[in-house]
């Protein structure tokens, strides 16, 4: 059994969450720089240059990249040979998030769904667990904004719809979202599983770096096909037109019931704040 002290998880995760709010990941920043060079429309170039300037300012001044510092989402993969000593892992992750959001002057964005009363400390964190084999602990963290999350959808297609049906659903979703989710966006697509599993696949797809090519060549080509179709919509940065509606499309796939074809689209704004920590 490998023992990991909960204090170590707390300090590392608090630091990572603080960084996430103010530091745009390198792959995302590079994709925006590339898009800036590729755009010819003045309005598209202007938006992208503001985003690059914003990223630099946030990194240097420690002001959050976006006022929507988001819901704190964790995906935890915990090995069956790991024992966490001290505080319960859910409590540690929550405490790391709460303290980071307070110390970093991040916005507290969660409320009761009926009274809409703010919980005041960004709780609860949304924590997912996977029990895996081995002695490592992996924690993925994402600060997910509400504007792009609101544009996300899940559907249960008939198997006859096939790839063409999936493609139509995804591209139409992006088209209908238009300027709302802060394009250029990143599109996470979950295909298969069940009604509950497909959105998890889609969300996890958003943790794949933009440069990551799917190991399955057929799926990698489908990701490129969707990215082309989405960028051909011409929505462009902030909906003002241009070549860059999406910076990337990532598809995660799982087998499904013979009667079903679940498809989920999780939209991520350009302020894609995600981190991976392996203990």
């Amino acid at each position: 059994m490998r023992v990991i002290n909960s204090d170590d998880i707390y300090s590392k995760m608090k630091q990572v969450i603080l960084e996430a709010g103010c530091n745009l990941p390198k792959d995302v920043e590079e994709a925006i720089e590339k898009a800036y060079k590729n755009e010819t429309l003045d309005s598209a170039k202007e938006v992208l240059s503001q985003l690059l300037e914003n990223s630099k300012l946030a990194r240097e001044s420690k002001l959050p990249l976006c006022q929507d510092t988001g819901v704190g989402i964790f995906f935890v993969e915990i090995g069956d040979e790991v024992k966490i000593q001290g505080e319960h892992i859910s409590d540690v992750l929550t405490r790391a998030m709460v303290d980071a959001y307070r110390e970093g002057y991040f916005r507290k964005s969660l409320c009761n769904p009926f009274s809409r009363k703010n919980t005041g400390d960004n709780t609860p964190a949304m924590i997912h667990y996977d029990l895996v084999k081995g002695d490592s602990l992996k924690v993925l963290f994402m600060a997910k904004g509400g504007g792009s999350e609101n544009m996300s959808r899940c559907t249960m297609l008939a198997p006859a719809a096939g790839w063409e049906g999936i493609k139509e659903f995804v591209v139409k979703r992006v088209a209908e979202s238009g300027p709302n989710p802060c394009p250029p966006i990143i599109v996470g697509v979950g295909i298969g599983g069940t009604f509950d599993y497909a959105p998890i696949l889609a969300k996890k797809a958003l943790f794949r770096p933009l440069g990551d090519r799917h190991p399955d060549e057929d799926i990698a080509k489908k990701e490129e096909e969707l990215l082309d179709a989405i960028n051909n919509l011409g929505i462009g940065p902030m909906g003002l037109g241009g070549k860059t509606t999406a910076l990337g499309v990532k598809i995660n796939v799982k087998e499904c019931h013979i009667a079903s074809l679940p498809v989920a689209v999780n939209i991520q704004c350009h302020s894609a704040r995600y981190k991976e920590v392996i203990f």
Partner: protein
Amino acid sequence: MNTYKLKTPLTDEDILKLKAGDVVLISGIIYTARDAAHKRLIESINRGEELPFPIQGSVIYYVGPTPPPPGRPIGSAGPTTSYRMDPYAPTLYKLGLKASIGKGKRSDEVKKAMQEYKGVYLGATGGAGALLSQRIKDAKVLAYEDLGPEAVRELVVEDFPTLVINDVYGGELYVKPKL
């Protein structure tokens, strides 16, 4: 496309010269309100109560800023998605609201109200909250403090950069997706 420097409160004359695509740099006092604050504003109107700020000629910024770090008037402060305020916006335009600032599409009802009551919808760059906050020189909570980030704030802005998305003539800047 023109660039206009406008000072609040705005007049009909200010609004009538604006066309979709124009750049508008706003200076003066603007007010923040988003989902929960809009609900309360409309409830106040329905009860016949006075609003926490003068609505005639006003500009409302759809934003829920991050808390101010030491030495700054406000934290990060970019626009939120505007459609969520669509159920409330026509009533406010009718009472004299001249411009709302946000991001994303508006409903036909809001566009109609803007044409009827001479108002515009301005877009600011979503996700550029750190950068936009540099144009905010002062901020104070005016009402609904219990709403936290959703409280109504009075902001003093200097050349706050916006684009005219919807004008009074039915013009719109957003492109229609080529499906």
